[in-house]
């Protein structure tokens, strides 16, 4: 199902083939670091080719490819096209656009720093990266975010600019970061108007969880 203003088709993850369902885990319940149950996204944009990812602008300064750069640690089905990203990715891009305006310079998303499937081997517990609502930024303009001063300065800017954003504190312990800025908007589920009907119903959602 395709919105004429946006060139990517929205797919129901539950209708994808098994290999992809096992990777994307659509609608499944997983647990975050605090032990809270979190439901994974069910609806995804299907990206047919890398050329599409390069061409599609999610916002004036952020293209789709920047959110899907994952390395060999990503599950194999998501290292080839078509690729899938949760529909919330468009809202993440808009938030980043606002952040970029405030920073007044380029914002660079790190590899493995945009969407990561729940099967990405860097993931431990549920991470908003698997909702498409988190980004790891390693560089802003000419500033590398690999030290306390830079991480805290831009973390504060993110919190000030984006009231709902959470930025990991500087540090080397679990939940902290010392070589990039992690910003996320929580476990947001997005269901665009063009999303297919929930034809499997409530029972099916319970079944997959």
């Amino acid at each position, binding site marked *: 199902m395709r919105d004429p203003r946006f060139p990517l088709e929205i797919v129901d993850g539950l209708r994808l083939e098994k290999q992809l369902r096992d990777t994307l885990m659509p609608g499944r319940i997983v647990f975050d670091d605090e032990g809270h149950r979190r439901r994974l996204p069910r609806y995804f944009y299907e990206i047919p080719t890398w050329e599409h990812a390069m061409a599609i602008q999610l916002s004036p300064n952020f293209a789709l490819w920047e959110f899907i*750069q994952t*390395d*060999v*640690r990503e599950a194999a089905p998501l290292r080839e096209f078509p690729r899938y990203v949760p529909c919330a990715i468009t809202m993440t891009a808009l938030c980043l656009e606002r952040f970029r305006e405030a920073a007044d310079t380029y914002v*660079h998303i*790190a*590899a*493995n*720093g945009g969407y990561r499937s729940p099967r990405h081997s860097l993931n431990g517990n549920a991470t908003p990266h698997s909702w498409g609502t988190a980004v790891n930024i*390693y*560089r802003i303009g000419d500033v*590398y975010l*690999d030290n306390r001063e830079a991480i805290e300065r831009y973390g504060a800017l993110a919190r000030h600019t984006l009231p709902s954003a959470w930025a990991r504190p500087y540090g*080397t312990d679990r939940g902290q970061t*010392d*070589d*990039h800025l992690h910003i996320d908007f929580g476990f947001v589920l997005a269901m665009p108007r063009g999303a297919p009907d929930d034809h499997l119903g409530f029972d099916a959602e319970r079944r997959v969880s």
Partner: protein
Amino acid sequence: MPAPTTHRTIFTPPPRPEALDALHLRFDALERSSGARAIAVAVYDTETEVSFRRHAERWFHAASTIKVAILLGVYASIHHGWLVPHSRLHVRNRFRSAVDGHPFRVAADRDANSAVHDAVGKMMRVSDLALHMIATSSNLPTNLLLDLVGLDTVQRALDEFRIDGIDIRRGVEDERAFERNINNRVTADGLVQLLRLIAEERSYSPDLSRQMLDLLHAQEFRNGIPARLPAAVRVAHKTGEISTIAHDAGVVYPPDRKPYVVAILTEWSPDASARKATIAEASRAIYEVLTAENANA
């Protein structure tokens, strides 16, 4: 550049026993004159099947020669289908100490080249990282590749081929581990076993072996084993150097004969000079004994 596939049919005669005895004496003298704390040598000549060993079972800090073992681990992963050479890897300068998991980084100003440091935040291909690890001995790609494949994979690969004399315990630039004497170690015998495996195309497959050999042929530090050999002699090798250590180990291809495999490991006081010159002289001595040049002497 790959190894030549044809050789002359008249084989080099093996060195006479007295020539090998003389080589031992020459190394004794070299150790004294150079001021080295220790010089260990292992040689295996694939043409004559002659071996030469001097303190070949003595353990040394591996320095960057451990990168050959890591290369074997990377190709083990390729062989098992966990990676392909063009797999892409996130370049991130953050590693955990083997001591306690404390994070550490590879200092850019102490690394051999800046190419991989310039890619922090981006991705690079495994094959390119392997090239930087070997050809310029860059430490950042070394730790990235070791992090990716894991110590266990490297050790299992060494065990699978029954290579003893190589003990891998951590990545490079792990100062906390160094302070606690948790170090990678090698013997001259161990490095020769590993390099023979690659040179004789017995590591997983001839094709994968040749790929590893190509990387060793790309070595840019040429002031050890190759330095005093004739220009026509090609050498696929890996150097290693820290404050008290200078090593070089490789496969030497004299023209018109099969190659020989050599490891020259040396230990020094921190203020010693002439390390590379000593390795070059040792390499020259071995070359003279093993080649026809010596047979005609």
